C-alpha cells in the first residue's frame, strides 16, 4: 500500500448488533441512501485505483505499464491481485535482474564474493542487506534506490579490486553492462589500488619515463590490434562463409564448416609426412629404376599410374636403406627424431613412426573434438522443452537476406504448427491396423535397402575377382579405371534408390528420417570399402607376388579418390543444376532443390576414409585430398548459391555435426586404423620395392631396430625394456582397456548422479515456487485487509453523515457489506436489500478488528 494506515480501527464487539433488526419501514430509505453511497464511493474507488496505478508507474522503471497488469496465476486462485501487490511482484529480485542495472551489479557482486571466498554461495545474512537485490531498494522508493545502487557499486568495485587482474578481466567481460559502465568499473577498480601512488612517485623522479613506457605499451597494443585485424581478415573463406550463413543459415553452413575441419585434419596428417618422409626422401632420391621412363600422357592424373608410379607419391619409391650422408640435418622432435638420436636416418623407421605418429595425433584430435562436440550438444536432462527451445533459439541472426529471412519465417511457422499438431496427435493413440501397416512398410523398406546393399557388395566382389583373373598391364591405363568406376557408380546410384524407398515410409520426426538415411548410406559405403580392403590385402597381395602390391593399392585408392571427386561433380551438375533447370522450365515450380546436407557430408566422410586407408601406401594422398576439398568448397558454394535452397526441415546443426564427427571417428577412422594395423602387423610387404622390402612384416623394422639398440650399449637400454614389457607383453593392453572401461563406468555413474540431483533441485525449485505463491497470497490478503479497513473507515464517515438512522452506523453492518465484496463495502450491488443485511450469512467475519 502506498500509504500505510496510521491507526487501527477498534471495533467493539456488540452482541446486541445481531439482535437489532431494522424495522421494515426504514428499508426504502436506507436503500436509497445506500444507492447514493455506492455511487459516491465507487467514484472514489475509481480515483484511488487510478492514483495507485500512477504511483506504480512512477516508481517502477519507465515503460513498465505492462508489469502492473500481470496477473500471477497461482494453482488455486487466478484472481488478479491489487496493484500494490503486483508492484512488489514486479520488483522481486528474480524479475528485476533482467532489466535493472542495480540488480545486475549486485548479482555480479555476489559472484565476485563467491569467487573470492570460494564458498558455494554467500549466506544471505552474511552479505549485508545492501549487497543483495532487495525489493526495498530500487523500485519502491526512487531516491534510496539510486543511493543503494551507488553503495552496491562501490562494494562491487572493492570486490573487483581484491581479484587478480585476469579474474577481474574475465568477470568484467561477462557482465551484461555497457562499455562505458565496464570501463568506469575497471578504471575505479584499478585506480584505487596502491599502484598509482607508486607510479606517481616514480614519475616524480623520472618524468619522461612514464609516458615513454605508456607510449611503448600503447604502440605495442596498437600493433597487436593491427595484427589482429589482419588475422581476422586472413581467416580462410571468412567472407564466403558469411555469405553462406547469411543466405542459407546455420544448417547449410555446418556442411562447409565440416569441410573446413576435414581440411585441418588433412593438413595435420600431411605436415609430419612431408617433413619426415617425403621431404627427406626427395632430398636424397634413390637410384633411378632401370628401364625407360614412360612419357606423361595426362591419363596418369586419373589412374595415378604410369609416370607417377616411381615418384614420392607412392610407397614403392622409398628406399630401405639408411640415409646418412653427413650433411643430413638430424630431424629433431617428432616421433623419429628422438629415437634416431645419434643414429643415421633410418628410412623404414621414419616411415613407420611418422605414419604411426600422424595417425596417433589425428586420433587424439578426433577424440578430443568429438568429446568437445558431445559436451556442447548433449546436456544432462536436455530432452524436454521442444517448444520453448524452438521459440527462443530458432532464429538465426546470421541471416541477412530478405528472401532467406522469409524462408526462415516460413520454416519456423511450419515447425511450430507441426509441433502443436504432434502434441495433439500424441494424445490420440493410433489404431492397431495403422500401426501394423506402418511396421510392415518399415520392415519392407529396410529389407529392400539391405538387399540393395547386398547386391552392390556382390557386384563389387564379383567385379574385383574378374579384375584379378584378367590382369591388365600398366600400359592399359584406362582399363584400370573399371573397378573404381563401378564402385563410384554404385555409390552414386544407391543413395537415390534409398531416397526413393524412403519416400514410401513415413517417419514421425524429420530428424529420425535423416538418421535413417545416414545409416543406410553409411552401411553401404562401409560394406563396399570392407570388400575392397579384403580384395586388396587378401587377394591382390597373393596375385601380385612379384610386383609392388603396395603401389597398386595406393594407385587404386588414388583412382577411387579422383573418380569420387568426378562423380561428386557430376552429381552436383545433374542432381542440382539440371534438376533445377528442369523443375524451373518444365515443371514450372518455383522451388529450387534442397541442399542435401546429410548426403553431402557422407560423401566427405567417405573421401576422408579413402585418404586414411591410403596414407601408408601413398604418403601424398592427404595432399590430393586437400586439393580436392578446396575445389569442392568452391564448386559446392557456387552450385549452392545458384541452384539450391536451404532445407525446409528444422536442422539441429550442432547435434548433426556431433553425429558427423562421431561417424568420422567411429567407422571411418577406426576402420582405417584397423586396416593399417593389419597391413603393418600381418601382411608381408612386397620384396621388390619400398622401405620394408627385406622384412617379413612392416612391424619387423621396429623389432630389428630394437635389437640393434640392445647391442648398441647400455646407454639406451631402457628402450628395449620398454619394448619388451610394454609393447610385446599383452598385459598393458588389458590394463589400459580395463582403466578405460572403469573411467567410462565412473562417468556414467556421475551422470546418473547428476540427473538425480537435477531432479531433486527441480523439485526444490517447484517447492520454492509454491512458497512464493503462498507468500504472495499472504501479502495480497494483508493488503486486502488494509484496503478494506480504509474503505470501511471512509464508509463509516460517510455513513455517519448520510444514514438517517443511527442504528445503521454500527460497524458490523458495514463489515458485513465488506464481506460481500472484499474490495470495498460500497461496491455491494444495489439490490442487496436490507432484509439480507438483517440476516447475516453464517460466514460473517467474526474478528471485527480491522
Amino acid at each position, binding site marked *: 500500500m502506498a500509504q500505510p494506515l496510521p491507526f487501527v480501527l477498534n471495533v467493539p464487539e456488540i452482541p446486541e448488533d445481531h439482535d437489532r433488526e431494522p424495522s421494515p419501514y426504514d428499508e426504502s430509505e436506507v436503500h436509497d441512501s445506500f444507492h447514493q453511497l455506492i455511487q459516491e464511493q465507487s467514484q472514489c474507488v475509481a480515483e484511488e485505483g487510478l492514483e495507485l496505478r500512477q504511483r506504480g508507474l512512477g516508481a517502477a522503471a519507465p*515503460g*513498465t505499464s*505492462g*508489469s502492473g497488469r500481470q496477473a*500471477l*496465476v497461482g494453482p488455486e486462485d487466478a484472481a488478479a491481485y491489487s496493484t500494490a501487490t503486483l508492484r512488489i511482484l*514486479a520488483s522481486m529480485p*528474480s*524479475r528485476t*535482474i*533482467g*532489466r*535493472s542495472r542495480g540488480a545486475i551489479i549486485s548479482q555480479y557482486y555476489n559472484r565476485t564474493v563467491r569467487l573470492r571466498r570460494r564458498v558455494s554461495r554467500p549466506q544471505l545474512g552474511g552479505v549485508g542487506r545492501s549487497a543483495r537485490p532487495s525489493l526495498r531498494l530500487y523500485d519502491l522508493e526512487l531516491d534510496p534506490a539510486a543511493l543503494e545502487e551507488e553503495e552496491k557499486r562501490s562494494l562491487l568495485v572493492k570486490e573487483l579490486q581484491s581479484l587478480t587482474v585476469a579474474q577481474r*578481466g574475465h568477470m*568484467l*567481460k*561477462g557482465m551484461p553492462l*555497457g*562499455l562505458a559502465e565496464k570501463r568506469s568499473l*575497471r*578504471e575505479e577498480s584499478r*585506480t584505487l589500488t596502491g599502484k*598509482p601512488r607508486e607510479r606517481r612517485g616514480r614519475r616524480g623522479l623520472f618524468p619522461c619515463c612514464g*609516458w615513454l613506457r605508456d*607510449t611503448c605499451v600503447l604502440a605495442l597494443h*596498437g600493433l597487436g*590490434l593491427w595484427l*589482429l*585485424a589482419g588475422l581476422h581478415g586472413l581467416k580462410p573463406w571468412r567472407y564466403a562463409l*558469411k555469405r553462406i550463413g547469411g543466405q542459407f543459415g*546455420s544448417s547449410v553452413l555446418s556442411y562447409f564448416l565440416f569441410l573446413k575441419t576435414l581440411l585441418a585434419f588433412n593438413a595435420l596428417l600431411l605436415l609430419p609426412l612431408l617433413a619426415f618422409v617425403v621431404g627427406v626422401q626427395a632430398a636424397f632420391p634413390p637410384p633411378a629404376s632401370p628401364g625407360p621412363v614412360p612419357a606423361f600422357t595426362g591419363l596418369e592424373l586419373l589412374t595415378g599410374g604410369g609416370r607417377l608410379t616411381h615418384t614420392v607419391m607412392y610407397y614403392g619409391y622409398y628406399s630401405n636403406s639408411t640415409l646418412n650422408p653427413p650433411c643430413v640435418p638430424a630431424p629433431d622432435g617428432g616421433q623419429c627424431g628422438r629415437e634416431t638420436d645419434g643414429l643415421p636416418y633410418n628410412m623404414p623407421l621414419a616411415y613407420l613412426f611418422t605414419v604411426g605418429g600422424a595417425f596417433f595425433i589425428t586420433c587424439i584430435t578426433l577424440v578430443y573434438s568429438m568429446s568437445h562436440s558431445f559436451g556442447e550438444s*548433449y*546436456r544432462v536432462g*536436455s530432452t524436454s*522443452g*521442444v*517448444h*520453448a*527451445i524452438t*521459440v*527462443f*533459439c*530458432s*532464429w*538465426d*541472426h546470421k*541471416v*541477412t537476406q530478405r528472401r532467406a529471412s522469409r524462408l526462415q519465417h516460413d520454416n*519456423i*511457422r511450419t515447425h*511450430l*504448427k507441426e509441433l*502443436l499438431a504432434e*502434441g495433439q496427435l500424441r494424445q490420440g493413440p493410433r489404431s492397431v491396423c495403422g500401426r501394423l501397416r506402418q511396421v510392415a512398410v518399415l520392415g519392407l523398406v529396410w529389407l529392400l535397402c539391405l538387399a540393395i546393399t547386398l547386391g552392390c557388395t556382390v557386384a563389387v566382389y564379383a567385379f574385383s575377382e574378374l579384375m584379378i583373373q584378367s590382369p591388365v598391364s600398366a600400359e592399359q591405363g584406362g582399363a584400370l579405371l573399371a573397378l573404381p568406376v563401378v564402385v563410384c557408380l554404385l555409390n552414386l546410384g544407391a543413395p537415390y534408390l534409398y531416397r526413393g524407398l524412403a519416400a514410401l515410409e513415413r517417419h514421425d520426426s524429420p530428424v529420425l528420417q535423416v538418421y535413417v538415411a545416414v545409416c543406410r548410406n553409411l552401411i553401404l559405403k562401409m560394406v563396399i570399402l570392407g570388400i575392397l580392403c579384403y580384395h586388396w590385402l587378401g587377394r591382390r597381395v597373393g596375385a601380385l607376388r612379384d610386383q609392388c602390391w603396395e603401389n597398386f593399392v595406393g594407385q587404386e585408392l588414388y583412382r577411387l579418390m579422383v573418380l569420387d571427386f568426378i562423380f561428386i561433380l557430376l552429381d552436383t551438375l545433374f542432381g542440382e543444376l539440371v534438376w533445377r533447370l528442369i523443375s524451373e522450365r518444365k515443371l514450372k515450380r518455383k522451388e529450387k532443390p534442397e541442399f542435401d546436407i546429410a548426403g553431402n557430408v557422407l560423401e566427405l566422410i567417405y573421401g576422408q576414409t579413402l585418404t586414411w586407408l591410403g596414407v601408408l601406401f601413398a604418403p601424398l594422398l592427404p595432399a590430393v585430398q586437400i586439393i580436392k576439398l578446396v575445389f569442392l568448397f568452391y564448386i559446392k558454394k557456387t552450385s549452392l548459391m545458384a541452384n539450391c535452397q536451404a532445407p525446409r526441415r528444422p536442422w539441429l*546443426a*550442432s*547435434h548433426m555435426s556431433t553425429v558427423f564427427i562421431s561417424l568420422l571417428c567411429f567407422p571411418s577412422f577406426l576402420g582405417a586404423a584397423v586396416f593399417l594395423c593389419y597391413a603393418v602387423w600381418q601382411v608381408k610387404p612386397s620384396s621388390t620395392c619400398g622401405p620394408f622390402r627385406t622384412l617379413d612384416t612392416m612391424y619387423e623394422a621396429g623389432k630389428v631396430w630394437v635389437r640393434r639398440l640392445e647391442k648398441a650399449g647400455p646407454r639406451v637400454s631402457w628402450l628395449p625394456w620398454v619394448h619388451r614389457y610394454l609393447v610385446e607383453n599383452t598385459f598393458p593392453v588389458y590394463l589400459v582397456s580395463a582403466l578405460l572401461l572403469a573411467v567410462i563406468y565412473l562417468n556414467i555413474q556421475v551422470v546418473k548422479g547428476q540427473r538425480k540431483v537435477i531432479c531433486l533441485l527441480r523439485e526444490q525449485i517447484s517447492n520454492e515456487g*509454491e512458497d*512464493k*505463491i503462498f507468500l504472495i497470497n499472504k501479502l495480497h490478503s494483508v493488503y486486502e485487509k488494509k484496503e478494506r479497513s480504509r474503505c470501511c473507515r471512509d464508509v463509516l464517515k460517510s455513513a455517519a453523515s448520510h444514514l438517517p438512522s443511527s442504528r445503521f452506523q454500527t460497524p458490523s453492518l458495514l463489515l458485513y457489506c465488506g464481506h460481500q465484496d472484499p474490495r470495498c463495502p460500497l461496491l455491494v450491488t444495489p439490490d442487496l436489500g436490507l432484509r439480507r443485511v438483517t440476516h447475516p450469512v453464517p460466514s460473517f467475519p467474526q474478528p471485527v478488528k480491522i
Partner: protein
Amino acid sequence: MRTAEPPRSLRPGWALRGLRSLAPALSNFLLQPGGGSADFAYREPGPSAHRRFCELLPQEHRSTEESLHTRVSLEQILSLPELKANPFKERICRVFSTSPARDSLSFEDFLDLLSVFSDTATPDLKSHYAFRIFDFDDDGTLNREDLSQLVNCLTGPGEDTQLSASEMKQLIDNILEESDIDRDGTINLSEFQHVISRSPDFASSFKIVL
C-alpha cells in the same frame, strides 16, 4: 587520476607515424586504460566496426574524433544489411541504446552490440541480452504478451502468417509448462537461461558477422 590526464592522443609521445594510419584516436579509444583493451570481444571487431559505423555518419562527422561522440539514429542503424532482415532489429537497437529516448546508438553502443553478437561473447552474456531483446515491455520477465509478440516476430510480419489464437494459446501454455519452473506464470531470466543452456545451437545462431 588517470581521467585527469590529457588524452593520450594529445601528448607529444603519441606521435608514432606508423599507427596514424590506423586511426590512432580509435585505437586510443579502444585501448584506453580500463577501456575495452582487456576485452578481446571489443578488440576483434574494433577497426572494421568503426569503418562500418563511419559509413552511417554524414560526411562531415566522419573524422575519427567526432565519430566517437556522434550518435546514429535508429533508422540508419536498421538500414545496415546485417540487421535489415532481422525481425528483432528494433528490439536489438533499443536494448543496446544508451540514449534516454532509446532511439540512437553511439559508437560505444554499436561496439557493445557487436561484441555481444560476436564469437567471443560468453553464452551467459548472449542469453542475458537475448532475454532483454525478447522482453518487449522491458518489465524484467517474459509474460504471455511478450511471448506472443515473440512468436509473431518469428512467424512473420503479415496477418495471414500468424498463428491462430488457439494455436498461440496452446503454444504459450506449452512454453510456460516447459520453462516456467517456479510456476509464477512468467519466465524470468534464470529460467530463460536454463532453457537456453539446453540448446547448443543458440550460441552459433545468436551471432551477427560484420
